[in-house]
């Protein structure tokens, strides 16, 4: 399968491990990621909080480039990029006046024909393949699936999964052989873009997410957004300092977990780039493997 690929700024920088693991699983699942040439910033936060037309025009330009490359569908792995691209696409489709102004800004023909997918949408389509190719090293690994605010919301933009009680990540995680836990904070805010400007709020919000996952018995949290990952991973040191230093909680990108499930080499999944070491997860996988070997010997 061929699909357009919009990495956005974070997958080239702070979330390189997301890009690495995504490339790895795409190869394993026979998906060809076709990066949009000359893509630009999606406009997340800065554009849409200052200038509405700019916040539509930036993603529109990227969608136009994708259209020129004959890409019918584009994957935006970052939840914020996904939201911006999908919102712009819908704004142009729904409002003729906006469509006209965007056309003028772009100065080139644009049909608005490109469909935008989140990673949850793409992998939900592929649960069958994931299950077939799954090597089951994650058996009984308990993970908390964290959607954050933008992966399935707002419902009128995403039109995918239940916005208040979603289950798509759980289904993907199950297909990859791990066990999702029932928990309460899957949709709560991590603090998002306030990471630098209001760190205390981010620490408070992310702490309650970590606590809830821990309480539900999760051994790792699975995320699908670089911002969520950075708040839960990078800020975990500050959070745990006040929490009487409990066991650190590894935060995995969805693509990393699927990669582990498919039995890919952990080195190819960028697992070494996290602040909180995912070693407990790898240890768990090794223990499962040893058990299986023991059983074979016996």
């Amino acid at each position, binding site marked *: 399968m061929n699909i357009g690929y919009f990495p956005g700024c974070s997958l080239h920088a702070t979330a390189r491990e997301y890009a690495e693991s995504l490339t790895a699983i795409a190869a394993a699942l026979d998906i060809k990621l076709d990066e949009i040439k000359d893509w630009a910033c999606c406009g997340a936060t800065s554009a849409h909080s200052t200038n509405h037309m700019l916040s539509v025009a930036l993603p529109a330009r990227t969608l136009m480039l994708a259209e020129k490359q004959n890409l019918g569908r584009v994957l935006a792995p970052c939840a914020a990029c996904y939201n911006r691209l999908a919102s712009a696409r819908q704004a142009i489709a729904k409002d003729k006046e906006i469509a006209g102004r965007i056309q003028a800004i772009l100065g080139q023909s644009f049909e608005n024909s490109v469909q935008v997918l989140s990673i949850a949408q793409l992998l939900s389509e592929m649960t069958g393949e994931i299950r077939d190719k799954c090597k089951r090293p994650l058996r009984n690994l308990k993970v908390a699936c964290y959607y954050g605010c933008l992966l399935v919301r707002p419902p009128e933009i995403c039109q995918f999964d239940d*916005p*208040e009680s979603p289950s798509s990540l759980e289904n993907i995680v199950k297909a990859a052989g791990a066990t999702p836990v029932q928990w309460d904070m899957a949709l709560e805010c991590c603090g998002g873009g306030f990471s630098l400007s209001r760190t205390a709020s981010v620490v408070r919000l992310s702490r309650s997410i970590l606590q809830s996952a821990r309480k539900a018995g999760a051994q790792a949290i699975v995320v699908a957004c670089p911002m969520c990952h950075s708040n839960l991973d990078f800020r975990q040191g500050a959070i745990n300092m006040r929490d009487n230093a409990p066991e650190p909680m590894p935060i995995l990108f969805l693509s990393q977990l699927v990669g582990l499930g498919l039995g890919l080499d952990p080195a190819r999944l960028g697992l070494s780039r996290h602040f909180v070491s995912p070693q407990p997860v790898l240890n768990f996988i090794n223990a499962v493997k040893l058990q299986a070997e023991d059983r074979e010997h016996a």
Partner: protein
Amino acid sequence: MSRIGVFICHCGENIGRTVDCARVAQSLGDLPGVVHSVDYKYMCSDPGQVLIKQAIQEKNLDGIVVGACSPHMHEKTFRKAAASAGLNPFLCEMANLREHCSWIHEDRELATEKAIALGRFIVEKIKYNRPLSTIYIPVERRALVIGGGIAGIQAALDIADGGRDVILVEKESSIGGHMSQLSETFPTLDCSQCILTPRMVEVAQHPRIKLLAYSEVESVDGYIGNFQVKIRRKARSVDETKCNGCGECQKNCPNKKIPSEFDQGLGTRTAIYVPFPQAVPNIPVIDRASCALFRGRAKGVKKVVCGKCAEVCGRNAVDFDQQDSFVTEKVGAIVVATGYQLYSIGKSQELDILRGYGEYGYGTIPDVIDGLQFERLASASGPTGGKILRPSDGKEPKKIVFLQCIGSRDPAKGIEYCSKICCMYVAKHTMLYHHKVHDGKAVVFYMDIRAGGKGYDEFVRRAIEESHALYLRGRVSRLSRDGDVIRVQGFDTLSGEPVVINADMVVLATAMRPQPGIAALAQKLSVSYDQHGFLNEAHPKLRPVETNTAGVFLAGACQSPRDIPDSVAMASATASKVLGLFSKELLEREPLIARVDRMTCTGCFHCERVCPYGAVERKTLTDSKGRIIKVIAEVNQGVCQGCGTCQATCPSKSVELDGFTDEQIYAAVNAI
């Protein structure tokens, strides 16, 4: 040559101010065929009518045109006047010079010209009017009531007490409806069952009421005064004529763990069961999906797996081989009283527009319940014997949070209307809770308090002031489990602060929706319904209990969310309409209906396909030896509403609408 009289009314100043009525009368008087033309200040007044009557007799008129208000207003008046002077009433027509002319124009000159044109229009039309006579249809003076909740019970009793036979059809095994599930009722806190049960018994014992419980309407044919209704009597697996309701079968049924529908899943029942002890009729039914014997049969097991109920039955009433049977009843009127269901809060929804409330964890958090479940907990006959206990661990909750408007007034969740009863029953719940758990704290999240009704607002004030319920204005964004308690995250819009409350139990006041299957029933009855499935009344203000299908009436929450007093009032209103219909042996219908020309009809049946009322029937014409000549369309006089769709459709011009024939319309149109 016609002898037409024209009467132009000033309607005080209403027409006279903008239209020169004298000139209109004079101008129309010059038309060929018009032999008399006058204007008068108030044509509908007694002297005005006398003018018309005198003119008819003195000038021997054979048609009159009254240029006045809308025919909706006074056509009946003038036709009656014409009839009393010996003229066929359908030779009297009105030209609407008020709503269609004087009220909407300012220029006197132009308005007068238009009034003359409107008058000429009707004068030319009336030249082709034929005398018509009222149609009389025999009325079967028995009623069918669909639904045995409080609305259906009240309607059935009122009609029966009025001296007419009633057939009451209820789909469940007992009548009583939702009201039988309630603990106490607002605003007087009297026990629901105590006031309902006597009425249920009255239904069972009434000589004029035939109760068909565990039955459903299969099909409806016919028209007002003459409906044929086929009713499916679902197999109870118990012979109603033999069973004496002793209850031995229920006691001995080994399968006791089935969630009870009557207790909203909070209690259990057996596979052969009576839903509640006061059931009417007090005859059990076997739930074949749960009964071991029937499950065995379904799997093809040859051996009889169980038969305990039949063994212990002293009267051999249990009949495992009973099949659904059908009865056909002839009735003259139908009352729909199918009631409501609650919005299902969980994720799975039957309609696409309904979104559910994933954020409230209903179905996954056991102590999040809905209003009807709370009623069962508070009811003395409920699963806890009237003690308020949590479903999860049976502990007494010390803090209950009530959420109002769950589903209602929330277009994002698919329902924009107000369910009307929730504000009141939540106030009642807080009181019941306070009466039973003195140290318990009730917190209510509300959007607005809608307590319109006698004694209603006082009741809510009592909940706040005497039962100390804490009312917070705002919505709740999420319910989550936190160990033993439920974390309620909400927002208090009056203080502008987010609120987090740890509650022991949460009660959701969910929206009222029409019963499942209402659309199918509405289609059987040719009754329209809104996008939510509530049945449409004929007029929202002036004909609230009638439908657009003559002879079909509405009562209770099938039409819109209603509380008990409203449902009962509506049921009695419906009963009076039915009794009014039954007051005569023959029903009078206006003769303005479609007629098919037998000679030219080719039997294409385009008319049958377009008729919205199903009034077109097929008739076989035979010669004297019984050989078929052709099959043609025929219009059922009782069903036809005179809309004219068939007339417009007929390719061979074989359908005419009496009072609006092609000839009349062409003549009228040519006159302007």
